[in-house]
């Protein structure tokens, strides 16, 4: 949006009650809580035909994220784990305001992200970046690596000189593990392997020195060995640069390897959250227990009990009454059909939403 210098931007007039960019730059992290998500709700309306929309009494929604509350701490890797359609990606996208929440609050350093004005949002995006799943489709094949990594700097008008820009790009590429960076600067994506492309994506995200990176299945399309390199890189960047990662994955074993805390999602709700080792060693929710039991392990002699759930995740349009997991739950009782379970505190940071947990 181009504005003449000195005159207030048009949008400012329309965005009363929104968060001003200055508030964002002066905001600080309190008590290590980078994000405080309260009752987040992201519903997508279903397009209905003319006749149905006349007859239907209520509008239908895909309830992708249905009242989710959690916190993201500064400098941690928080893993959002769940099957496809559980709302983990939508949650991650909502944190960056790539989806507009239909309800609830996302507080970033205490400021409500859903009330960010356009300019604030632009400033916010310098601080919050995303890495996508498929490094083959998420970077422009016609740009050189330098252009890809430099683009965020150009868009945000960050560098005062070409030299500074080049320095920052080289630094980001080096940190992403493509060494020496100068060898890669003028190559094109098709000359790189899948792992190297994902490193370029990571360099593109870290070049802005963000506070938080949402990594949406960053290793799902990579080979094992390369996958582990990328995971290592994420841990390194967390430790060296203090980047907070929100690691979205369907693979609980990978979350277990690198994350500090795990949040297990099912059908738009977090069913269990806590310190990674605690959740994996001592799962409380029947869904988490089942998920952990079916993770294959590279040891043929380990005979383990598999809890294989029947059927598939229900349609997020018609969410089951009471506990949304009860139709598939091996431990369900009659009351589960009625009561929507509240979070039960287990120990420390460990919470699970199941009425059968004894306190």
């Amino acid at each position, binding site marked *: 949006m181009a504005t003449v210098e000195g005159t207030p931007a048009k949008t400012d007039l329309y965005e009363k009650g929104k968060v001003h960019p200055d508030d964002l730059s002066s905001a600080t992290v309190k008590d290590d809580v980078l994000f405080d998500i309260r009752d987040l709700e992201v519903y997508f309306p279903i397009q209905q035909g003319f006749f149905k929309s006349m007859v239907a009494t209520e509008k239908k929604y895909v309830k992708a994220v249905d009242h989710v509350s959690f916190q993201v701490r500064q400098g941690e890797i928080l893993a959002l784990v769940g*099957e496809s359609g559980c709302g983990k990606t939508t949650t991650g996208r909502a944190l960056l305001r790539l989806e507009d929440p239909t309800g609830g609050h996302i507080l970033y350093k205490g400021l409500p992200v859903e009330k960010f004005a356009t300019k604030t949002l632009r400033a916010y995006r310098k601080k919050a970046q995303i890495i996508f799943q498929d490094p083959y489709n998420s970077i422009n094949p016609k740009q050189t690596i330098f252009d890809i990594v430099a683009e965020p700097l150009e868009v945000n008008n960050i560098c005062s000189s070409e030299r500074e820009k080049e320095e920052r790009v080289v630094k980001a590429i080096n940190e992403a593990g493509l060494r020496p960076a100068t060898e890669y600067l003028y190559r094109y994506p098709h000359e790189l392997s899948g792992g190297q492309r994902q490193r370029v994506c990571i360099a593109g995200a870290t070049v802005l020195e963000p506070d938080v990176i949402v990594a949406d299945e960053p290793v799902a399309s990579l080979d*094992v060995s390369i996958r*582990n390199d990328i995971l290592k890189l994420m841990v390194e960047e967390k430790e060296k640069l203090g980047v907070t990662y929100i690691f979205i994955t369907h693979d*609980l074993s990978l979350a277990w390897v690198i994350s500090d805390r795990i949040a297990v999602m099912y059908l738009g709700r977090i069913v269990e959250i806590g310190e990674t080792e605690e959740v994996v060693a001592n799962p409380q929710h029947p869904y988490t227990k089942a998920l952990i039991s079916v993770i294959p392990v590279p040891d*043929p002699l380990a005979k383990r009990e598999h809890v*294989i*759930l029947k059927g*598939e995740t229900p349609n997020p349009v018609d969410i089951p009454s009471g506990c949304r997991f009860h139709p598939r739950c091996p431990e369900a009782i009659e009351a589960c059909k009625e009561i929507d379970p509240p979070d039960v505190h287990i120990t420390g940071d460990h919470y699970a939403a199941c009425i059968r947990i004894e306190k």
Partner: protein
Amino acid sequence: MSVAKTKAPEKKPAERVPHKGILEVRELTTYFKLGVGDVKAVQGVSFDLEPGESLGLAGESGCGKTTAALSILKLLPENGRIVSGDVLFEGRNLAKRTEYGMSRIRWKEISIIFQGAMNALNPVKETGKQIAEPIQLHEGLSEGKAMVRVKELYDLVGISQKRVMDFPHQLSGGMRQRAMIAMALACNPKLVIGDEPTTALDVMVQAQILELIERLRRELDLSFILISHDLSVMAETCDKGVIMYAGEVVESGTTADIFNKATHPYTRQLIKAFPNIHEKREMVSSIKGDPPNLVNPPAGCGFCPRCDVRIAICETEHPEMIEVEAGHFVRCVHAEKGV
């Protein structure tokens, strides 16, 4: 399937050769023709399979595991060819069979579950009718009669019979994979090859599909070849395993041999790359470097540049397969003959 189009040549009694088990692959070598030269995708791969047994073919992408499996069925793309070696299926050498001869074997005796169920199914044809196709061709049944069998198959793989007339896009990912399994079982084959049958699926659906395959294997007494990049899946489902690297078998044996007595440095490093959630939490390791270019494979051991225990001889001399224990083979100069 081109059965209807190919003309039947004169019948000759099939030659049978003495063989081990239901399938024996001997020194199979498959090349792909490219502009720069031949890509030596599979070089001298041997393994065998007893009736009712399950075998896992594992390795990183590009190691030749899928090519080896496609060579068994001679389903290679146009630029691929079997250069040498034998594929003995119940004594019949498939490597020397004609296209017509193969069309009698495919699906009737050996079938394959492809990786991406969405891409492997025809999007504009009802799923049930697609499954009926091989039954009609091989058993000469009408579509109506074949559909009766399809409904039985749907029961067998756990999809509701009501869904037979659904198009692939109406089924979920797990159901599509089940439909692919139903298709593979349509003509009661003896051997089923699963090419990464669970790769694109969620963990829970993966567990369901693996359990289904396991149950069907027991009930129908099938032999099964699982192609997977995921060693953990192989450890859980297979009796025997073959680890491939750069077109060659580097280690083979029972899964217990491979995972608990891994001898080849590549196997050892590959196993460490998979997290074991029941052990102490540690960072998974990765294997440095890249696999060699298969247009000009190195003279020595293919894994040598990435190996942590390499010695001078590894660079020049190609290691032989050594039997370290009965049935446990390793291609490494460090391996000591135990039998």
